[in-house]
């Protein structure tokens, strides 16, 4: 039985307190490995302007449905996964702050590395989330993951 959290969307940045709560909650005695991915807002330079922050928006009902599909894909593939916790920001997140947390708790380390990477890639590909990237002159762009590295 895999435990998966229900509320994936968080307003504003993901704080260190939230990260530590996720870790502390994964104290099941059969978990032997935690793998965590944290996505941080990078201050890219675009047309000589620094990115100051990103405002995320989402289609919340579809986010829930897609996250369930993503976690099903991963748990069917990796049978050592015991716990998954995903948090994605909506609203404004400033540069240097965290906007995505993917936690995977497994019995052993190897599948935890693979599962966390696969969840991140599926989130980038399939989650109905958009980002409005603000620059220091208050202009904005709408980058998407087709061009993202």
């Amino acid at each position: 039985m895999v435990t998966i959290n229900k509320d994936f969307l968080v307003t504003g940045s993901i704080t260190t307190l939230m990260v530590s709560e996720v870790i502390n909650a994964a104290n099941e005695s059969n978990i032997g490995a935690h793998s965590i991915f944290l996505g941080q807002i990078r201050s890219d330079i675009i047309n000589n302007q620094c990115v100051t922050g990103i405002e995320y928006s989402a289609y919340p009902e579809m986010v829930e449905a897609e996250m369930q599909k993503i976690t099903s894909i991963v748990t069917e593939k990796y049978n050592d996964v015991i716990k998954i916790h995903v948090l994605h920001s909506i609203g404004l997140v400033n540069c240097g702050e965290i906007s995505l947390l993917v936690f995977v708790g497994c019995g052993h380390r190897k599948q935890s590395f693979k599962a966390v990477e696969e969840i991140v890639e599926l989130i980038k590909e399939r989650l109905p989330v958009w980002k409005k990237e603000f620059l220091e002159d208050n202009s904005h762009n709408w980058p998407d993951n087709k061009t993202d590295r």
Partner: protein
Amino acid sequence: MKINVLLFGILTDIAGVSHIEIKDVESVSAVKSWLWRNYPKSKDIDFQIAVNKKIIDGKADLKNGDEVALLPPFAGG
């Protein structure tokens, strides 16, 4: 016949709203034509369409009260 159209990402910039109720459209392609006619800049935007939260390929007929979401390329993470 009323259709609830939800716009996301760059389409909200183009239309200036995130929700539009339109009448007398009976298919997804009619919603697209309506959007392009009213917001010509949307012709430059690539987007998928979800009807009642399911992404559809190609054509689909609509019924009263359907929710049609216009989804530009995703940018999560």
